């Protein structure tokens, strides 16, 4: 059984000014473009599933992860190239808040790439060390069509003291494996307990396919990353997450695992109504939640602590000791209870920077 997360039946709608760009040319190899009047985010809701819009981005292409009040953030810097995702995870904020099921790519991404190149020219001490894509989309969902990752991987291979992280729930990585990367790109896979992957992420590649893709990436010398986010309470969750940790051990024995992040399910209160209307069969909102210090609904702290401890223990048995395991957007208190220390945002970012520098030599 194999699921392909790449969206089929796409209609490419392209603003005229981007017709001659490398992005349009790459997309044109598999999709016939249709003309699109210049538009802005307010116009996106007029388009729906199956539409791929190539339009101008008027904001910043590079921005720090916004983090969240009262919780430690890993301090990544985001390269923003598009919006939307067709994977359709039932916990995903993109499902509810983009206001459209269409996919959006920024036709002027070359401007963003130029900004990024400029930033990377600065000495490492004067700029961020870790970058990622895919805050508002999956890093590799459309990459076979866009060719964007190859450009980024090459750019980072030529840059000292900087690491790129590509995060995905797909297994669309084989087209990248022959690229020269110098260990400066981490290919990361979002993973979960088998039942969650099957039921709540049904549009993503199956867990085994993701882990096999991670295995092939590791064999090609890429450091790999793993993100358990969101951890979700479900029947037999302890066994489920332990099973995934065990599968990771089996697939990635001897691989360079850069880091593993953990984050418990959290959501803005208004997401629940939207998602239950769309997916009445899901039970992930039936758990017990409290309002966190950032205004998001979270599992009660003691339950989160228990989930993290369970998974950290299983991962420590499955992965080499040097693998950095950290929590995404967690409170100082939970850090102390799980790891016996609170690194604070600055300390966590510095720790991950050090790990990144180890990887890129």
């Amino acid at each position, binding site marked *: 059984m194999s699921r392909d997360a790449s969206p089929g039946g796409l209609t490419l709608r392209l603003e005229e000014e981007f017709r001659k760009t490398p992005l349009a040319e790459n997309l044109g190899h598999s999709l016939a473009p249709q003309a699109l009047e210049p538009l802005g985010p307010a116009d996106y809701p007029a388009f729906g599933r199956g539409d791929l819009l190539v339009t101008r981005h008027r904001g910043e292409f590079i921005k720090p992860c916004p983090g969240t009040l009262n919780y430690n953030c890993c301090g990544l810097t985001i390269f923003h190239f598009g919006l939307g995702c067709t994977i359709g995870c039932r916990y995903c904020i993109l499902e509810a808040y983009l206001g459209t099921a269409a996919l959006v790519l920024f036709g002027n991404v070359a401007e963003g790439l130029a900004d990024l190149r400029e930033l990377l020219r600065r000495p490492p001490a004067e700029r961020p060390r870790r970058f990622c894509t895919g805050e508002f989309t999956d890093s590799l969902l459309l990459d076979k069509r866009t060719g964007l990752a190859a450009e980024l991987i090459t750019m980072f291979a030529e840059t000292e003291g900087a690491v790129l992280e590509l995060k995905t729930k797909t297994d669309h990585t084989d087209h990248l494996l022959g690229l020269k990367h110098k260990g400066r790109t981490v290919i990361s896979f979002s993973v979960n307990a088998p039942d969650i992957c099957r039921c709540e992420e049904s549009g993503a590649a199956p867990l085994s396919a993701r882990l096999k893709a991670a295995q092939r990436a590791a064999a090609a010398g890429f450091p790999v990353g793993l993100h358990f986010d969101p951890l979700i309470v479900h029947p037999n969750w302890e066994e489920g997450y332990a099973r995934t940790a065990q599968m990771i051990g089996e697939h990635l024995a001897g691989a360079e695992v850069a880091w593993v992040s953990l984050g418990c399910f959290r959501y803005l209160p208004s997401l629940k109504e939207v998602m239950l209307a769309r997916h009445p069969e899901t*039970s992930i909102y039936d758990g*017990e939640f*409290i309002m*966190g*210090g950032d205004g998001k609904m979270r599992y009660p702290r003691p339950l989160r*602590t228990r989930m993290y401890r369970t998974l950290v223990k299983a991962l420590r048995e499955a992965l080499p000791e040097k693998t950095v395991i950290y929590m995404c957007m967690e*409170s100082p*208190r939970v850090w102390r*209870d799980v790891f016996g220390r609170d690194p604070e945002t600055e300390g966590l970012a510095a720790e991950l920077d050090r790990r990144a520098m180890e990887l890129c030599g």
Partner: protein
Amino acid sequence: MIDFTLAALAPMEAELAPLKPLMPSSYGRGVEGLAESIRALGLLRPLLIWADGGEHYLLAGSLRREALMRQGRSVAPALMLPPDFPREQAFALALADNQERGWNQAETALLWRFFVETLGTEGAANLAPYLGLAPSPKMREWCLRAAGLPEQGLAALAEGRLDLETGARLAGWAPENLGPALNLFDLLNPSKQKKKQWLDWLEDISRREFLCSAEVLEVEDIRTALADVERVGRPATEEIIRKYLWTRRHPLLAELAAARQARVRALALPRAARLELDPSLEDLKFGLNLTFATPAEFGQVAETVAKLRQSPDFQKLLDDDHES
């Protein structure tokens, strides 16, 4: 819109019985007061009639007609709109005719649904200002949904015992669940915020436990509390209902909160020192509220706090990760 003034129309005598209502302009209104006024003062305003496809529709004056018919009258003065008078404009006139009286929420919901079904969303939007309906799409969606409530719900809307948002939500409930919820609201009249919270919990419990909401509400604890409302009063009954639903929705949090309360009690703090803990257990910060009237009292409180710092029970409370 055609150029038109009502004053230009000559009054005529219209037979009351054959007139058909055009739209649901009145809901939950008694006619006794109006009948009394007509008896004393006569009919101050003629009815408004619109002819379409050979039928005569009563555009404005349904309550007046009812009051007149109760008095045994079969005809009444009326104004007949000219032939081919546009339908949308006829609706606007009908609304304008009732503007002074205003609309209760059941009428607003029913009228809005009628206009959307008759004229489409755009046509209905032209009439919204006459109906006093805000341009908020959410409000309009609530009206559409709330119009589907059964009689008991519409009556509660009309009488202001139910708000539109809650009504819209309850309209999606199965009739067998709606009754117990409305009965609960009727009996206790909780605030809108409480209604929302209770419905959230009820829906969550029902989904999680594969029960219908009526079954959740028909437990002994709630039945007893509602039967006792006269004796213990509404606020205390509301608290019983709230606590029951919260605990059933959040068994883990309830257990953790109880354990924490027991630990706080074990500290045996004096009244002058009140520990303020985060009820969500997120524990991003703790508070200690000290109250004293004199320097001597301050000394005593300070001593208590100093001792607290060393207390193993206090440390356990602060460091407790609930694993034990």
